[in-house]
């Protein structure tokens, strides 16, 4: 495994953490303004698209998907996923300080566990290094040759 994270790549991971949580919170805020959508009134969804919070939320989630895919192109899935989970922590803080929701002791415990989980992988290597196919073939040939000599 190798550690290949430049400051720019840490920024991409930060975007993964923030865009999903901010996007979800903006969507939730916008949809409370729009009101409940039922199967009989699906037209309300088009109306929701005119709400700036909903539009902002969708843009944030598009940004999340782009930064998530970028991160997966140079880091392992098991390295990137805990970063996405850190978004849950951001949502909890947004809920507390923006929406003024109460965070229970159980939820604080959950936040602590996620922070610890992210901490485990954050300083570790970001990518498993697989030997190129040609090297693998060469090493196989070599072992066959060694086995033959024995």
């Amino acid at each position, binding site marked *: *495994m190798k550690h290949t994270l430049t400051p*720019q790549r840490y920024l991409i991971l930060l975007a993964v953490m923030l865009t999903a949580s901010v996007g979800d919170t903006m969507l939730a805020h916008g949809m409370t303004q729009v009101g409940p959508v039922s199967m009989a009134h699906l037209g309300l969804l088009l109306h929701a698209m005119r709400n700036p919070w909903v539009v902002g939320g969708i843009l944030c989630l598009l940004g999340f998907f782009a930064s998530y*895919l*970028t991160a*997966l*192109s*140079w880091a*392992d*899935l*098991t*390295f*990137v*996923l*805990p970063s996405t*989970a850190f978004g*849950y*922590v951001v949502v*909890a803080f947004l809920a507390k300080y923006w929406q003024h929701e109460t965070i*229970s002791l*159980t*939820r604080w*415990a*959950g*936040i*602590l*566990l*996620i*922070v*610890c*989980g*992210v901490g*485990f*992988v954050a300083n*570790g*290597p970001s990518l*498993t290094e*697989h030997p190129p196919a040609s090297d693998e073939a060469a090493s196989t040939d070599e072992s066959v040759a060694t086995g033959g000599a024995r």
Partner: protein
Amino acid sequence: MIYASHIDVGPLETWATIITVAVTAVAGDVLTAGAMRKIGDLDVIRAKSGLGGAIRAVVSSPMFLLGVLSMAASFFSLLFTVSNVAVSLAAPASASLTFLGNAFAAKIFLKENVDRRRWFAALFVCAGVFLLAK
């Protein structure tokens, strides 16, 4: 009772729907990650062929499209699940199972080196998500 549900759904059906959500989510994540691994570093592709080239490289990958299809299946099965099972059980249970499933699937299918540190991370995040969504 832990299987508090909106309608009368047995534990078997409850867990079958939750596991379906988790399995399709894991398939989506692994297929997407596998596709991105095959495509290569998007920063390099963007530097060579621009943003359009990077987008073309991603959306022309069948594995990526299959991954997105699995993610969509996971989303709709989650909708189905929360319409039958209490969201306070369905959301944390499926999210936690997805984290653990991804660690196993990444080791088996993507051949990632899931060392002790990453197992601990998966377990901590899994437990954390469960507590957070309670």
